[in-house]
């Protein structure tokens, strides 16, 4: 027993540290969300008061509206971009490896860098608008970055640039694993390329599509760095998102209880996406075993 102690320690210490911190930290944050903590965590019970305060705040409401718009626009557009790129790259074109690397390199760069660079490109006095003006078309306008109603779209643009490559990589892997016999049979039936994609190939991709949607939604819900670097939530609070509200409450306004409540709400949003997905995966696996 003693002789095997190093073995037990090596197996258990890292796993227990990881598992324990996940459970303990989650419960801890949930507990803080029910306390009247402000500058420092204190005990006490305020029920759901922190939650109602967060839910009633303009900041949070705007963050939720933005998340809905940003999440759906970003997921749909990056899905479409990724799928189109994957189909194009699947046409046995030359330089496929180089092209794939080009579409994927943004994933190796930090969101801070992406956000900073796009904040320059989209800044009307510095970037694309300025360039077009300097070229002579002075009535050209592309000032979404400073337009309250459109600013959220700048985040959509940067996010699509950053992560469409991810959707592309998964779709491409899916396209490459379509059963060759299936394609041959369709060819014998005289199906043209468009019919082939619509009727034969794309229907096999939907499990991948679900996975991509879930991962991109997960990213959308926890988006922080990108907004911080690109708009910092502005102009005003026009591009506020839940993760920014959490940070603001915890570390700028020192309302720890409310910050924790906002973090728990974020977790619930995430669970609303992940739990149905986990259930779906479970059913799929079951079917695969029984089939």
């Amino acid at each position, binding site marked *: 027993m003693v002789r095997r102690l190093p*073995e037990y320690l*090596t*197996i258990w210490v*890292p*796993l227990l*540290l*990881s598992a324990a*911190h*996940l459970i*303990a*930290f*989650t419960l*801890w*944050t949930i507990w803080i969300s029910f306390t009247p903590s402000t500058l420092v*965590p204190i005990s006490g019970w305020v029920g759901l008061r922190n939650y109602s305060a967060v839910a009633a705040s303009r900041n949070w409401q705007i963050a939720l509206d933005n998340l809905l718009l940003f999440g759906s626009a970003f997921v749909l557009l990056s899905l479409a971009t990724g799928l189109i*790129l994957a189909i194009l790259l699947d046409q046995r*074109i030359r330089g496929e490896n180089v092209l794939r*690397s080009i*579409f*994927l*390199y*943004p*994933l*190796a*760069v*930090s969101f*801070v*860098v992406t956000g*900073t660079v*796009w*904040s*320059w*490109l989209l*800044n009307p006095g*510095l*970037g*694309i608008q300025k*360039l077009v003006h*300097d070229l002579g078309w002075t009535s050209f306008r592309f000032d979404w970055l400073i337009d309250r109603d459109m600013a959220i779209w700048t985040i959509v643009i940067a996010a699509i*640039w950053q992560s469409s*490559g*991810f959707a592309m*990589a*998964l779709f491409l*892997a899916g396209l490459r694993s379509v059963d060759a016999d299936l394609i041959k049979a369709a060819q014998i039936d005289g199906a043209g390329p468009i019919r082939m994609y619509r009727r034969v190939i794309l229907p096999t991709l939907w499990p991948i599509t679900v996975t991509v949607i879930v991962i991109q939604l997960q990213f959308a*819900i926890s988006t*922080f*760095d990108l907004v911080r*670097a690109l708009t910092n939530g502005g102009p005003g609070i026009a591009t506020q998102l839940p*993760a920014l509200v*959490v*940070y603001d409450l*915890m570390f700028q306004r020192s309302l720890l209880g409310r910050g*924790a409540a*906002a*973090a*728990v709400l*974020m*977790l619930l949003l*995430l669970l609303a996406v992940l739990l149905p997905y986990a259930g779906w995966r479970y059913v799929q696996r079951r079917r695969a075993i029984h089939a």
Partner: protein
Amino acid sequence: MRNRTFAPSRILIYLIVSLIAAAWLAPLAVVVLNSLRTNEEIAQGSMIGWPQHLAWSNYAAAWSGFCVAETCAGIRPYMLNSALVTIPATIFSTLLGAIAGYAVSLWRFRGDSWIYGIVTLGIFLPQQMRLLPWTIVLRDTGLMNTLTGLVVIHTIQGLSFTTLFCRNYYVAIPQELIRAARIDGAGFFRIFWRIILPLSPPILVVTVIWQFTHIWNEFLYGVTFTTGQQQPVTAALIALSAAVADIPQHGVQSAAVMIAALPTLLIYLIGGKYFVRGLTAGAVK
């Protein structure tokens, strides 16, 4: 394929793909070009333009000259901070993840699938749920505002990914191999050292690249748990753009952005295949 190069539909495909590729490269090109233009040149025109003469001095200034929040040492100290956090955390989390992945997939012990299940939940738990507990833990252990604190955080949190990667790789190793070695009297560590590790290079490369990229690029913990001279480079970049808001120095800033992005970009260029494998491994479990 007949008329492979001349069919109009193929020309169209190449045209579309090249256009999108150009759009994807444009931000990088803009930063590279700006990092070689003087601040005055950029101020006269836009941020999109060709350098009149190559202003390499931007890189010198970005590396060790300009001022962030009253200290004028350039981006160098922050790059060093990022390296001092990223390299140890990557090594620790990868090594511990390999052992943990081996333990849950091949060694097997009571409760292994339970604890493995909980550990992988860490992939989904948002950072925001851990911010306050980490704040308290770091404060009570005296690790607040230290690089060691960030190493500890990234090592523990990284375990969720590294254990998953390694476990999924090791389950393909036949159990008989382990059983035979155990009959020969080999223990946990000897089997790991002699059998598992020699089979591991592909997955270790994937894991190291994944961890390095993620820890280097991480921002939220860096900005929350460190201040001033202790910050990693991602946090310093944000501080820099706030600091120069009055008198923009876009040439120098572009050089700083390039320097900060270079380590992960280089790793991507060298090990892109493994990077993509990590991406898809995280997605298709």
